């Protein structure tokens, strides 16, 4: 029999638990709220104490003014080109390579697959300098090519690994049936495997989007002219060109660049969370 005391203790524990959950959620959401609140303030309102959390009246014009303070439309176009082509390149070539490793038997396959995994161990900084020199020799510096072309070479080791694991879980029966019907390897890849790995491909596409959309170091190294810059470089320029008190513009522009990431998260949450759990990638 449970005594009154344990019942009270249990109820109390339950309340404490819910309070911790809600408190944590508020803490995690506050930075977003602060961002939105700042982005809607009048120019003089940002640097006051105590801060006004709900700006009155909200100044929606900040978004338009921040966006037009710099050629953000151009930055958006550039970012879309780089991100879009990278997604296409990474999903297509990573799936081709993953299919090769998962389904075909060829000489040296296991050694080569270990090489794929080994490349994950090498920090990008090790190859950063010679890569720059290669692209410089090719005359590709200050073009989008250094940011896009590597994506067409198998995407990334992680994506190859993820897709290979996924393809390995698909039974061979359909492959064999297709083979009897005279389907070649490419036919098996495009007609049998591709339709079945859509969830994993979506996951790869989402992570590809996130990493290119937010990439800062790549564009920082390779893109110099004003007309080639991306959104993250644009934000950085905005930060440097703003005077200290123009925080409302900076936050408005930041929100606009984060919106696509948040939107994709809300629409594709399923792929997101299963993908993160599957691979352990965080960003």
């Amino acid at each position, binding site marked *: 029999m449970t005594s009154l005391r344990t019942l009270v203790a249990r109820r109390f524990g339950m309340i404490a638990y819910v309070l911790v959950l809600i408190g944590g959620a508020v803490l995690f959401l506050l930075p977003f709220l*602060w961002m939105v609140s700042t982005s809607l303030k009048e120019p003089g309102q940002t640097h006051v104490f105590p801060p006004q959390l709900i700006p009155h009246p909200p100044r929606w014009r900040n978004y338009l003014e921040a966006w037009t303070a710099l050629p953000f439309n151009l930055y958006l176009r550039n970012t879309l080109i780089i991100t879009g082509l990278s997604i296409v390149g990474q999903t297509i070539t990573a799936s081709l390579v993953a299919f090769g490793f998962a389904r075909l038997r*060829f000489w040296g396959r296991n050694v080569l697959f270990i090489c794929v995994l080994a490349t994950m161990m090498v920090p990008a*900084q090790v*190859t950063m300098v010679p890569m720059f020199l290669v692209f410089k020799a090719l005359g590709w510096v200050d073009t989008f090519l250094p940011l896009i072309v590597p994506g067409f070479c198998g995407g990334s080791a992680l994506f190859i690994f993820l897709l290979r694991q996924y393809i390995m879980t698909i039974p061979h029966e359909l492959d064999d049936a297709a083979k009897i019907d005279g389907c070649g390897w490419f036919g098996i890849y495009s007609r049998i495997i591709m339709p079945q790995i859509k969830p994993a491909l979506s996951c790869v596409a989402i992570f590809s989007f996130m990493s290119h959309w937010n990439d800062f170091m790549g564009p920082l190294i390779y893109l110099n002219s004003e007309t080639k810059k991306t959104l993250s470089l644009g934000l950085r320029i905005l930060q440097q060109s703003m005077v200290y008190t123009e925080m409302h513009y900076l936050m408005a522009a930041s929100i606009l660049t984060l919106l696509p990431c948040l939107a994709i998260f809300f629409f594709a949450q399923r792929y997101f969370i299963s993908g993160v759990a599957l691979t*352990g990638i965080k960003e």
Partner: protein
Amino acid sequence: MENLAGYLFISPWIIGFLLFGLFPFLSSFLLSFCRWDIITPTQFVGLDNYARILVREGIDSRLFRKSLTNTVYYSSLAVPLGMIGGISIALLLNKPQRIMRVFRTIYYLPAVTSGVAVALLWAWLFNADFGLINSFLRKFGIIGPAWLESQEWAIPALVIMGLWGVGGSMVIYLAGLQSIPKHLYEVADIDGASGFRKLIHVTLPMLSPTIFFTLIGGIIASFQVFVPAYVMTRGGPGNATLFYVLNLYFNAFEYFRMGHACALAWILFVIILVLTLIQFKLAKRWVYYAGELRT
């Protein structure tokens, strides 16, 4: 036939591996023994770059030691706190109720944002006079530290910012928790184990492969922090946030000391490799492999 088809399928990767993997990897090694500023011809200098960094007293060795100390300090705060935070939230949210999905989304949300926008947001949150954090503290009569403008508080501030994205590892822990067989808890209940003992003797050992996985990934990622330090502090104040990769970037792309930067990169590579191997060695003592390792 299958050989040829196989190579055709993986040919994009082979080209990429040779061009953007193996070739830069080896040439970065060779370059680390050279002096090169892109304009004047390359000059072989033997171990000079390494000697400047590791042995000879001077600006290079001082900046190397400073950046390495900063990075290790950041890592030693960010990795354990991130793991404790991630596991705690995962434990809190590992309940069947539907409402947990809402909380999971909220806690995960910051992890989908990254890059410059987030760095700008946190620079503003940490603003010494009008940022949300110090304004909040001031309401209670506490004068908060200058955060990013203070040598002492700049790195802890970046750690706090990193913890905001703890949802990323939380999801991995949640997946780990959900794969623990229920019967283990039933047995523990029969033995009369308390909630705390179940945590210590069932949950954590069963979760240890996942913890190991995030530990390795977390250490590697923390050694490569760049964007926050570049955008928020540019290594300041007084080199207090000069992280390893920031130092490397400055040498390569602002001072154009390509050979020096390659030597730094190779030292980083060896450090990460050794740390990872040590982790694997130590793992035998605490990682419990009854369940399979989830990758």
